[in-house]
């Protein structure tokens, strides 16, 4: 092997996605020469100008880290042999973006994301205490390692605000400084100010959902969305093309960091991107301090960036893989506390055509009447609820085929007629219940399977627990009530024990905390055992709210960047 080519910088950021691009923007903005190592391409808007192609993006995983190149293995328990994620890499090779790794390239997972931009609730930061106070300790799953966050919603609020205003989020405020606002979420935690943009236009089917929820006494509000509802900070407003979740945006309306923080970082003159760079090791000096990152460059050559600040921001799972591959796991906490979402997809046929191909996934509404601590005591055994979201748009025909009823016609005239008669009338709901951390749910390096570069892949050990099934089942009753009230003709739902054990919502595996013995990073993302190394992203979450993680991931990135720079006196 040729000698590695070494370059020097002040900071190196691995992964330029939702969190990494924000770190890069802040570090470069503070005058630090920053190099970004990105596994995928360095995209330009021209790459996405004509992206209205379901086969390319949804069926042939054009922008995601496909399992052929980036395998992840899974087993239900530590007694099983792990296999490459069978729900994706099975005999059909249907690698839909939702149940694999996030998109890569500048913008990372914020390219493919649907845009759901929720803040966590106040109670989400003290999930353990809240459950214990309400139901008693005995209602927690026996072996859960659930802990409260070492800080609260109010601490993170200014950073949520920063994401909403700097990245761009559309929505209707429900609670500004304690004052409830008509049209927003009445259960919302107080926010300092409104969203910078009004909500997106509701797609057709959402009217039925909203009216039905109101009649049932629920409180629907527009899904907050990282998509411009009107021109904002030099970017266009959404044109409602309906190729959104799983697709890049062709007009730059989605608040992907590729069009927000990356250009801002570049504008400082202190930032450079190394595309097609696969980081494989954090390099350390004899004292154990991080001194840089080694990577395979696009030409296959081993290169290294030496820097005093090393930031890992390449998704919870990949962060863990890099930490473990670098021998950073003295306290055995790296990879523990794996948490993910079970979506509880619920699909209905409406009485009339509502054109579900129009508009983004988030041009719709949601109820929080049963979210987190708001769930009433119940005989199902659920102790932590989830929002119920209406999904009205962003549904192309092949995806519609994949969500057909399990007992529906599979071939022949019946299949053809089913799609002909029902495609334009489909409506979906989902909840995303959070799993509980447990010693049985973790990630480590697979002892057998390597990626095409010869590096061990990540292995997930996870199975759905009774409490997960209980929560999905409880929320299923709510969805049935809403569907009945909507007057749907037919309805069906996913199993409460879904086949997937990974989505782009996997978190918790490099937990933040004050105690170096029981967490991986400190409150501001610095890895306890390795000075100069920061692991940023959903991997830091001590517990999991039932909302999409992106807004909280980005708020944490601003929070960590600010603290890092304060410490340096920059």
């Amino acid at each position: 092997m040729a000698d590695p080519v070494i370059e020097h910088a002040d900071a190196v950021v691995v992964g330029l996605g939702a969190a990494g691009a924000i770190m890069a923007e802040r570090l470069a903005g503070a005058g630090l020469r920053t190099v970004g190592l990105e596994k995928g391409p360095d995209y330009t808007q021209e790459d996405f100008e004509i992206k209205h192609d379901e086969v390319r993006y949804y069926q042939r995983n054009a922008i995601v880290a496909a399992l052929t190149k980036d395998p992840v293995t899974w087993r239900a328990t530590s007694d099983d042999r792990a296999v490459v994620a069978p729900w994706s890499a099975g005999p059909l090779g249907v690698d839909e973006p939702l149940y694999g790794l996030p998109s890569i390239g500048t913008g990372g997972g914020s390219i493919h994301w649907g845009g759901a931009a929720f803040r966590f609730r106040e109670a989400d930061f003290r999930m353990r205490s809240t459950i214990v106070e309400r139901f008693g300790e005995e209602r927690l799953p026996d072996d859960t390692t659930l802990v409260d966050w070492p800080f609260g919603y109010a601490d993170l609020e200014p950073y949520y605000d920063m994401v909403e205003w700097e990245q761009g989020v559309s929505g209707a405020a429900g609670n500004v400084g304690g004052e409830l606002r008509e049209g927003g979420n009445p259960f919302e935690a107080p926010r300092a100010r409104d969203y910078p943009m009004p909500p997106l236009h509701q797609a057709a089917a959402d009217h039925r959902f909203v009216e039905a929820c109101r009649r049932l006494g629920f409180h629907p509000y527009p899904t907050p969305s990282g998509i411009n509802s009107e021109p904002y900070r030099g970017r266009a407003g959404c044109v409602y093309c309906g190729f959104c979740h799983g697709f890049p945006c062709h007009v730059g309306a989605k608040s992907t960091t590729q069009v927000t923080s990356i250009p801002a970082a570049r504008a400082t003159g202190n930032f450079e991107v190394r595309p097609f760079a696969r980081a494989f090791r954090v390099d350390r000096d004899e004292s154990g301090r991080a001194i840089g990152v080694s990577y395979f460059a696009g030409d296959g050559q081993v290169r290294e960036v030496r820097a005093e600040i090393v930031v890992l921001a390449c998704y919870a799972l990949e962060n863990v893989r890099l930490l473990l591959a670098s021998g950073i796991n003295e306290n055995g906490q790296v990879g523990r506390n794996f948490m993910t979402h079970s979506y509880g997809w619920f699909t209905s046929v409406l009485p009339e055509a509502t054109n579900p191909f129009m508009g983004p996934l988030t041009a719709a509404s949601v109820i929080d009447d049963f979210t987190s601590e708001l769930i009433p005591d119940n005989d199902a055994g659920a102790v932590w609820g989830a929002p119920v979201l209406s999904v009205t748009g962003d549904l192309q025909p092949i995806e519609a085929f994949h969500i057909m009823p399990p007992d529906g016609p599979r071939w022949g005239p019946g299949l053809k007629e089913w799609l002909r008669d029902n495609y334009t009338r489909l409506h979906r709901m989902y909840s995303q219940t959070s799993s509980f951390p447990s010693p049985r749910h973790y990630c480590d390096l697979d002892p057998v399977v390597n990626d095409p570069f010869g590096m061990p892949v990540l292995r997930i050990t996870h199975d759905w627990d009774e409490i997960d099934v209980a929560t999905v089942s409880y929320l299923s009753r709510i969805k049935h009530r809403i569907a009945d009230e909507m007057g749907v003709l037919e309805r069906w739902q996913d199993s409460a024990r879904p086949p997937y054990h990974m989505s782009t919502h996997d978190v918790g595996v490099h937990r933040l905390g004050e105690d170096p013995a029981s967490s991986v990073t400190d409150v501001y993302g610095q890895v306890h055992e390795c000075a100069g190394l920061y692991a940023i992203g959903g991997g830091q979450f001590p517990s999991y709210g039932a909302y999409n993680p992106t807004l909280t991931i980005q708020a944490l990135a601003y929070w960590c960047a600010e603290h890092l720079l304060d410490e340096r006196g920059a």
Partner: protein
Amino acid sequence: MSEALLFLNRAEAATVEALACRIMPGDEADPGAREAGVVTYIDRGLAGFFRDQQGFYRQALRELDRHCEERHGRRFSELDIGEQDDVVGELDGLAQADVGGSLLGRLFALVREHTVQGMFCDPAYGGNRDGVGWRLVGFPGAQWGYRVEQMRPGFDATAIPLSTLADLRERAERDADG
């Protein structure tokens, strides 16, 4: 008029098309897999993105013909429609029992998946010829965007002219020319 074949041989193409036509049957008046060009979609896919599945397709198609010759004395594509439907029902049973468990079950599951892709892909992929798949289900295709009035309940989207990736490119080039 026949399309060029880039991977499948003529007999294999006939078998794939016959299978696809049982999954999405049709005729001139009510187009299905044949009219949409599904076999062209699959053949081009196998020559490109699905190249890792070339060996599987070849082996499994041979097995299907062997199976049909043993049962009915003819290849799958030579059976009458009723016989083909019996075979497809059997294959689908295998696929539902264990999709990876048998060559024929997996073949059916894959062809079913690829037939649907060939019905609803952009016509640039060789399937969904003249947008027949999109017309069937009421999908207007690759649209630059929709107006708020079009997103209201009760809007008749079948009035929107179909648009393809080629149309969007043309539009972009027109815009670039001013």
